[in-house]
Structure formats: structure tokens, C-alpha cells
């Protein structure tokens, strides 16, 4: 059993327009000391998945099923009250926008001390000492002075360090980072990524890193999970995912992103169309209306049957009807085309 084991997670919530199937049958596991990247675009279900793990979804307004087993405990079967005690303790989370994620009216000190004291039975002054020590560890200069600042007095990078410090205060063994660098500048992003890598090395926590940025994933992840329209479409060790992506959606992403290691004179090859509505998913494979290879599958199966997530190599799972050899061939072809070679 892995440290975190998510099995067949389903999340849906009703809206005025119909039921949104935000997450549909997601299963994955993370070990301590490993970084799992969850990649996807908006509406792919990556954030909802993480919030379901953290128990941050409103159970009354959302339908959640499956299991989320953290260190042997099924969080979905537990009382809200007991999950709350794990939140911020055993499992912690960092969010995308550090400015809006910190309370604008309270000093950093108050927000950190509160986080310590909800899980530890210590005095305010001890909690404050812990908070200052943690700010120092995440690289905030003069932490004993900065701790009395308000969030708006810090720069974006400093604020994200504060958020990270807040998450680390109670020494979590599962850390979920939801797009932690998306709102940051590129030089600050590099600092925060290094910080998270450093944390991963020294703390031995299991880290789930949610992002849409394939460049960041390559820097930080051990395993990668690609999500599309609420489902996992590909799951592989990072080297495999970049070396031989097999799901046409992953390939489409690789071909459509501008990157410093491709020939800029070769045009980008975008994925046609738009992501589907989660209320009204296409039948069969959700990606089939945008897939340029679905005509290679016999009988139009792609628009009828939802393909299973099946093994395609060492630790590699792919959800696609294309025969594995075809997938390997188009993978090689697509990656070569990035630099203008036609195979």
C-alpha cells in the first residue's frame, strides 16, 4: 500500500445547467519522498482532485465516491471533524495565488501562529518562535521583522514563501501544491521550484504538484498524471512521459507549447477545437472530437466506447484505442516534428 492511495475517485456537483462531472474514476498513488505532477488545463479536474484529497470540497453540495487512503486511513470514510485534524497537520496545501490566499486583514504572524496552535498545544509565543524559524527556513530574510508585516507588504515571491512556510509548520507528510508558481514571475518561479525540491529532499514528504506547465513538471516531478475532462488519460514516470508520450492529447500538448528547445521557425501544431463541457461530455473518449488520430481506429470506436486506462510500458498507463505500435510511431513522429524533421 502506498502512502497515499486514491482509488476510483468520482466527484460531481449539481449546477443550474446540469450535473458537472468534475472527476471521473481517478486512481493514483504517491510514495513519501516522491513528487507526482498532475497536469491538465482548466476544467481537467486536477484541482478538484486535490481538494477532494484534502477534504476541502463541501460534502453536502458535492457527490464524492471512491477512496482516498492516506497512510492507511480512508479519508472519505472519516468524519469531517477527523479529516479537519489532518488538514494542516499530516497533509497540507499551497495555493496558486498567494495574495488572495492570505487573509488581507491579518498580519502574517497571526495567520502562522493560528496554524501552529490549531494542531499543537503550545503557547502563542512558542508558536511565534516556530513560525519565525520556519520563515527563515523557506528563505525569508529578517523573518523576525517580516513576520509582523501584512500580506500586501510582501512581494509575490515572499508571499508564496509565507504560504509554503504555513503549510510546513506542522511537518506534513503529504504536501499538495496547486499551481504554486503560476501567478509568479519566471525568476521567482525558479526560486520557488528550487525551494519545493529542497523541501522534498529534506522532509521526505509525498508531494502532489498540480500545474498546467509542462516545463515546470519536467523540472520537479518523478511521476506525471495527465488529466483531460475529469479523467486520467496518461500516467507515466517523467522520463517516459516526455520521451514517449502515447496519448494523442499529451502529444498534442507537447506539439502546441512554445519551448526553448524547439526550432522557433517551426510553427506550433495546436490541438484543434476547445475543451468539452463537463456537463455534456462527448460519448466515448472525451478527447475524440479534437483527436487527429481517431480516424485510424476502426469502426469509429473512439466516439462510442470509453477506452480503459491500460498498461503501455513500465509504469506507463494510457487511455487510448489506438494500437500501441501506432501510438509509439506517432509519438516519435510528433516529437521529431518539433524541430522540423519529418520522419
Amino acid at each position, binding site marked *: 500500500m502506498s502512502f497515499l492511495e486514491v482509488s476510483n475517485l468520482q466527484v460531481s456537483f449539481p449546477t443550474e445547467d446540469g450535473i458537472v462531472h468534475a472527476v471521473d474514476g481517478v486512481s493514483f498513488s504517491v510514495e513519501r519522498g516522491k513528487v507526482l505532477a498532475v497536469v491538465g488545463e*482548466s476544467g481537467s479536474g486536477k484541482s478538484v482532485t486535490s481538494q477532494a484529497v484534502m477534504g476541502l470540497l463541501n460534502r453536502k453540495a458535492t457527490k464524492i465516491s471512491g477512496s482516498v487512503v492516506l497512510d492507511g486511513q480512508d479519508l472519505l470514510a472519516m468524519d469531517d471533524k477527523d479529516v479537519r485534524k489532518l488538514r494542516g497537520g499530516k497533509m497540507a496545501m499551497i495555493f496558486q495565488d498567494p495574495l488572495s490566499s492570505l487573509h488581507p486583514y491579518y498580519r502574517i504572524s497571526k495567520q502562522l501562529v493560528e496554524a501552529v496552535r490549531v494542531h499543537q498545544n503550545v503557547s502563542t509565543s512558542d508558536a511565534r518562535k516556530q513560525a519565525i524559524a520556519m520563515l527563515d527556513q523557506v528563505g525569508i530574510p529578517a523573518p523576525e521583522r517580516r513576520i509582523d508585516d501584512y500580506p500586501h507588504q510582501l512581494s509575490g515571491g515572499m508571499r508564496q514563501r509565507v504560504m509554503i512556510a504555513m503549510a510546513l509548520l506542522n511537518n506534513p507528510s503529504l504536501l499538495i501544491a496547486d499551481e504554486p508558481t503560476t501567478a509568479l514571475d519566471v525568476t521567482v518561479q*525558479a526560486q520557488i521550484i528550487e525551494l519545493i525540491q529542497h523541501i522534498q529532499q529534506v522532509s521526505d514528504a509525498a508531494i502532489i504538484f498540480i500545474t*498546467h506547465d509542462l*516545463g515546470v513538471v519536467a523540472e520537479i516531478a518523478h511521476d506525471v498524471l495527465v488529466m483531460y475532462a475529469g479523467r486520467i488519460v496518461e500516467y507515466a514516470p517523467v522520463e517516459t512521459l516526455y520521451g514517449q508520450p502515447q496519448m494523442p492529447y499529451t502529444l498534442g500538448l507537447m506539439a502546441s507549447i*512554445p519551448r526553448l528547445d524547439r526550432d522557433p521557425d517551426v510553427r506550433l501544431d495546436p490541438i484543434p477545437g476547445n475543451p468539452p463541457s463537463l456537463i455534456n461530455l462527448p460519448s466515448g473518449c472525451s478527447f475524440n472530437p479534437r483527436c487527429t488520430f481517431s480516424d485510424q481506429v476502426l469502426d469509429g470506436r473512439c466516439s462510442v466506447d470509453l477506452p480503459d486506462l491500460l498498461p503501455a510500458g513500465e509504469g506507463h498507463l494510457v487511455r487510448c484505442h489506438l494500437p500501441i505500435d501506432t501510438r509509439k510511431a506517432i509519438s516519435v513522429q510528433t516529437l521529431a516534428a518539433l524541430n522540423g524533421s519529418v520522419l
Partner: protein
Amino acid sequence: MTTPLLQVEDLKMHFPVKSRGLFRRVVGQVRAVDGITLHINSGETLGLVGESGCGKSTAGRSIMRLLSPTGGKVILDGVDITNLSRREMVPHRRTAQMIFQDPYSALNPRHTVGSIIGAPFIVQKVKPVGGVRKEVQELMARVGLNPEHYNRYPNEFSGGQRQRIGIARALALKPKLIVCDEPVSALDVSIQAQVINLLQDLQQDFGLAYLFVAHDLSVVRQISHRISVMYLGHIMETASRDVLYSAPQHPYTHALMSAVPVPNPQLAGKRERIMLQGDLPSPINPPKGCVFNTRCFAAQERCRVEVPELIEVTPGHQVACHFPITESLGTTLITGPDPGLTEQPDNAPDSPNAAATNAVFEAGAEPWAQRQS
């Protein structure tokens, strides 16, 4: 030599800061743009790149005369538009148009797409042959929208489609220049590429020039012919795309390049990062001398005193630095498909890269200071 389509000389845009005291005196200036010089030729794309707070968007807006510049000159298609009034600007708006970052807030939700795209015709009192409706529908088709959606409202479109609406509106009067302010940064990655390709196609078809303002160095590289790098209201470096990405000379450009993540796990941990220390200084009170000196790994005494001019080092390559970097800094740059890093054996902990990485976590340590000593 042909005259450039757009010429910007020593453009300054300062915003007054008022005290909250008794008389609301002006106590300072936010020097958002503090003397930038650039030009754009017909049909070319100049990327204006920099991090948040560098003044790139303000520069775009002052060039479009959505703001009134504090100083300097903006010459558009041979006409000095720097001090034109709003009304005097109207005819020149046909030459230059703008598209914006947020496709959600840049379109009036109560107007139909048809009337949004057709608005420039009404404002400029232009009667296209065949009528506004026909022209608008042709524009819609050209940018990849279904012309039958003429009477729909912006909220019925996705983010990418809304950006197409913005592009169609900008195209309506057949401008020569479009200022694109972060046009793809709010879009999903699979949609970004569609819009970038569309912009490139339109450039080909109509001979458009773009001022492409963005923070994403990979995107800017994909679309630009030349690129200017901004920092704290100043241009640090301008060069053609290939030169800027393979042989930059400004230390800030190096720092930026080294920080761009590349989707190649084989490079992860093998590239050197130039970590900038400290925070961006306030544009109200920028550092004396070179504005970058407080965070620069190559800064010397002279940099704290004397402002470096933007000087042409080779034809088309301008750098504002007293001590430009003319030799390789190691593995900070990714210059193309084969960065030559993938074949290297795994770095031992005592490699320069690992040292740099670790140093960041030791409070106050400056990896580059060690490197130079």
C-alpha cells in the same frame, strides 16, 4: 534605410504619487516607463518582454496613446502622435490597434459580437463595401469564428474564441500595427498555440507589425523577430530573436533565460540557474546608476553610479550594461533542439550547478558571488 513604422524615443510615463496628508502634495513619481527607445518595422514583430512591474504594459498603452506620456516621442507611420489630443488621435487609431490580455473583461458583455467587431467602422465613419455586416462576417471567418454567430453575446464564447473576437475587432480597420498586451497568457495551453498561429497567419496575409508584450519567454521567442527586454521601466537589451536567445549580453537577460523551465526532464537539475537575490525595487525610488545593479551578479562600483546607455554592440543588438557578458556562462542557456546537456553524466554534488542550488538555501548566500571570486 527605410523609416520604421513605429519609432519610440526616450519615452517616459510617470505617475504622480500623492501624500495622504493635509494638502495631498505630489511626493514622488512612479517611474513606470523611464526612457525607452525602440522601433518596429512594417510587417515585423517586436517582443517586449519582462517580469511584472517592469512597465511593459504601460509602455504598450502609452505607445497606443491610451495614456499621455510624460516625455519622449512616439512616431507612428511618420506622424508624431506624442502630444495629440484624444480627438486628434482618432484618425491615427486606424493605423494602430490593440488587443488585450483578458478576453473576458475586454469585451462589453451587453453587445453582440457583431456590434463589437463592427464598432470601429461606426467610430471611424467607414462604410465598407458590401456593408458592415458582410465585412464583419468576413472578419469573423478570417479569425476562425463562425460568421453565423454574429448575433451572439461574448459570454457564449470560450476564452480562446473571445480572444479571436478581440483580434477581429483590431483587424477591422486594416491597421499596420497591432499592440498585443499579453494576448495568450490567460488562455489554456492548447488554445495558446491556436492564437499564436492565427497572429502569425494574419501577419503574413496583411503585412501587420506587432508589438507583442508578454512575460513568457518561450511564447515571445515563438512569435517575435526581434525582442526587447525590460526591467524597472528601462530597456536592458534589444536583439534579434536568435541573438537574444543564444548570445544575450545583459546579465538580466541571462537570469531570465536561465529561469525558463524547459519541458525536458533530462535537462532538469543539469541547467545552471542564475538566482536573482532580493525583490524588485520600487519604481518610485529606483536604484541609482543601473536600475538592475541591486540584483546583478556582475555589478561593480560603476554600476551604482552611472546609468548605462543602451548601446549598439553589434548591428541590431543593443545592450544597456557597463559590463556586458560576452562569453558563455556555462549551461544557463538553451539555444535550440540540442542543448548538449542531455549526454552529460549526472552531476556530482560538487558540480557548480549543485553548489549554486544549495547556496540558495543558505541564508543570504550569493552563488554568483562565489563563482566570481
